[in-house]
């Protein structure tokens, strides 16, 4: 049977392995305690790995877990062990970058908790019942922002003129330094 790529869960844990936001899409972990046990083992298996620049991967108990860390937040995406790792990685990257955009690149536990409603919306827009809904970070961030109740704000992906200037200046400076 050819199957759909599917995501078993998405986790955002803090630097002690405690839940910030989690979402489970399958019945692999039927009870709260089994979920917590999974989070604990995933956290301890990965905590020593430096996954800050590139997403890293670990496989255990028949699951593939792709993870990436930033500041005091640990992001995880879990799939079955026959899943295409790169598809899962694209889900993680989409979610990770969208959260970055929403939190204005100030991704840490405290801002995440302060804007937890946006993180929940973000989770909701990435995966629907295990099905991948969207992996493009800017689209996800736009969907969340259009609902964030701040109509007066421009969508995140559209930069203001001054920001565009800043970026252009930086590029120019770099090209001079070469």
């Amino acid at each position: 049977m050819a199957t759909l790529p599917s995501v078993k869960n998405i986790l955002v844990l803090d630097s002690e392995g405690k839940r910030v936001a989690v979402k489970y899409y399958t019945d692999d972990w039927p009870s709260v305690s089994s979920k917590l046990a999974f989070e604990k083992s995933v956290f301890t298996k990965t905590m020593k790995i430096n996954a800050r620049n590139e997403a890293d991967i670990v496989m255990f108990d028949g699951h593939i877990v792709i993870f990436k860390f930033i500041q005091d937040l640990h992001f995880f995406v879990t799939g079955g062990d026959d899943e295409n790792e790169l598809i899962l990685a694209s889900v993680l990257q989409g979610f990770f970058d969208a959260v970055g955009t929403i939190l204005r690149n100030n991704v840490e536990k405290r801002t995440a908790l302060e804007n937890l409603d946006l993180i929940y919306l973000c989770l909701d827009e990435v995966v629907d019942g295990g099905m991948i809904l969207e992996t493009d970070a800017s689209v996800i961030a736009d969907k969340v922002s259009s609902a964030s109740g701040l109509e007066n704000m421009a969508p995140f992906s559209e930069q203001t003129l001054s920001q565009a200037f800043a970026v252009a200046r930086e590029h120019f400076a770099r090209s001079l330094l070469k």
Partner: protein
Amino acid sequence: MAQPMLKKDDDRDDEVDYHPFFGIEKGAVLQEARVFNDPQIDPRRCSQVITKVLYILNQGDTLTQIEGTEVFFSVTKLFQSKDPGLRRMMYLMIKELSPSAGEVIMVTSSLMKDMNSKTDMYRANAIRVLSRIIDGTILAQIERYLKQAIVDKNPVVASAALVSGIHLLQTSPEVVKRWSNEVQEAVQSRASLVQFHALALLYQIRQHDRLAVTKLVTSLTKGSVRSPLAQCLLIRYASQVIRESGVNQAGERPHFDYLESCLRHKAEMVILEAARAITELSGVTSRELTPAITVLQLFLSSSKPVLRFAAVRTLNKVAMTHPLAVTNCNIDMESLISDSNRSIATLAITTLLKTGNESSVDRLMKQITNFMADIADEFKIVVVDAIRSLCLKFPLKYRSLMNFLSNILREEGGFEYKKAIVDSIVTLIRDIPEAKEIGLFHLCEFIEDCEFTYLSTQILHLLGNEGPRTSDPSKYIRYVYNRVILENATVRAAAVSTLAKFGALVDSLKPRIFVLLRRCLFDSDDEVRDRATLYLKVLGGEAVVGETEKETNEFLFGSFDIPLVNLEASLKNYEPSETPFDISSVPREVRSQPLAEKKAPGKKPTGPAGPTSGPVVSAIDAYEKLLSSIPEFAAFGKLFKSSAPVELTEAETEYAVSVVKHIYDGHVVLQFNCSNTIPEQLLENVTVLIDASEAEDFAEVYTKPLRSLPYDSPGQTFVAFEKPDGVPAVGKFSNILKFIVKEVDPASGEVEEDGVEDEYQLEDLEVAYADYMLKVPVSNFRNAWEGMDPESERVDEYGLGARESLAEAVNAVIAILGMHPCEGTEVVPNNSRSHTCLLSGVYIGNVKVLVRLSFGISGPKEVAMKLAVRSDDPDVSDKIHEIVASG
């Protein structure tokens, strides 16, 4: 624009451990939720409260049914507000609460209104929420809108409708199937995710119609799919079609070109999906594999760990079936041994161990030694398993591999890891005779400093069995006696038994052993003292337990052949009286037979295909025990071979019967394992009536009936035949199961008094030449071959006719001869035109046989074979030829 977003409380910024949800409590939040009922809705405050409820649920807390209903009703009031942010939070909340059917009605009309709103975001989300909570009747009402939404020009709305369709297909397939046209249109969408979702739904609608799937794949592989995710899906569907259609006349697969073209796609996920699909094709050829291996090899040196992992994992799987195809990647693979991701490093090592050849073993071992120090135990176990199978593949390398195992044995490690190493060494000792002494020596070293009682006792037991038969038994005594001085009581007792075995089997050591055993008489532990006393008295001749030395040894060291459950039951029934407990009164019949039926548990995908000889050997031991417990069979002598169970009934029939053939020098015992699958019946006096008219050399001598066969508790009946001594007689037997049926009331378990005689036809059974051949490996085929008398060699050529493949022909010949393939020669590389296979075995009468088979394939699958046999007895060489000629 630059304003801070939703900063809830600015003046708390300075607090270090500020947590917005610190000390949050369910009761208080539910109290707060009353704000939803206010006539004047404050959207911002309501959003905050919803977030709090979601937070509580997300942390693992649950609402009771009443609490849930209450929250749900007050949330529905918020539909009055027009605030978009609040509306999104409401959607989340409704999904999270998963309301009951009665509650759903409350919100359907509001959601349906949102579904038709002008705001795309509302429409998309309302569709997703509705599809999650509705049942079939409401679906009929909204079906029209969903069909429209599928072809909506806004990709977000279309995706929402398509994903909802995929979910709804589980509950209301007949409705969703009507959307086929709209979905087909959506497949052509320019938006990549819409394309992906539409393809997924279209396939699921049509998946039971093979022709439709084939058409779908054929039309889409022509190139209208752009989205990488959709491309991955299409690859999965295409390989499904390939699987079902197989190879066509010209030896080509449909859609293979498509898979190959995906290897050049710009998205890595598509390349990986295609490469993996190619490697998983059944019967993939090395020509087909090459392009896939090439792209995977490029991935191996990627900077992204995920990509490296994906590539090495795929190559590891390929290495199990096509080791030669992966050897090109060995250099890249070796550099991964030092990868910072230990999963990648372990996969790289086990792949290298699978693809390595004899000459690279030493270099590989050196690299692994550095690596072993810094990985977790679970990875080390995988590596140890791989090394064991490598050693069995290249027995000549036992010295360096054994050294490696002993080195890692000395390092730190948990019980499972140490056990894996010890098990590996024991396997090597058993299978590679040359490795025995060095292996025992390493184990002796290990128990000098072993913290695991279980392993120490196991090793001491092994030393007792193997040590006395080595060239210099005395050198082991020191290690064993050290245990008596230094260890806990359990290990001391085991060490005493081991010492006694040396004393009993090696006469020259006896006086010295006695001195040591006498010292043990002063041990603080009862068991140790008791054992020492027993051994001293019996070996010293003070107590007489048997007439000959053999009987004495049998008494002391023979296996305990009474089932422990039976012994326990008998001891419980024994009442203290003048007559002592008589152990021979304990029934020896095994009540249920758990052995040999169980298949070896499936190996982990990363693990190597481990040696299967372990469980087989123990099964034979168990058979031997079982048979010797039946006095009528005890006189037949030593059991030569027991076959694997052969099923004599179809699966899922009333009675399941399988047979095991036990071969003795002058007898054959057929063991019928019967089980009764009807709860309403009890079978009694079960026998198998055998017609041996087509087996002239056999004469039935004894039948052991099975007294009763209740439901779901298997039992055995035996039939013994006499045959000419040492002659491999063959024949065909037809069998009928005879029994008395008694009705049973399954509820009460009561059995009716009267039974009816009945019989049941079983399938025929054959005793073939292969049943007289033992699979016995030799460690070095060439030496063994040259050590045999060339006079005994018999060579002939055979035409095997048209065969599916060379591999199939090789396997068929191995199966006919029932011999052990040596040095991995049973594996035929793909596309090879010729192959040499080496076999070894022991023929009945303890005649060692070696066979060298040379296969060649000519023209359209005509296989020819040259068979050369050497054996201890030239007659047996002739017989092997007879077997092949008649097979």
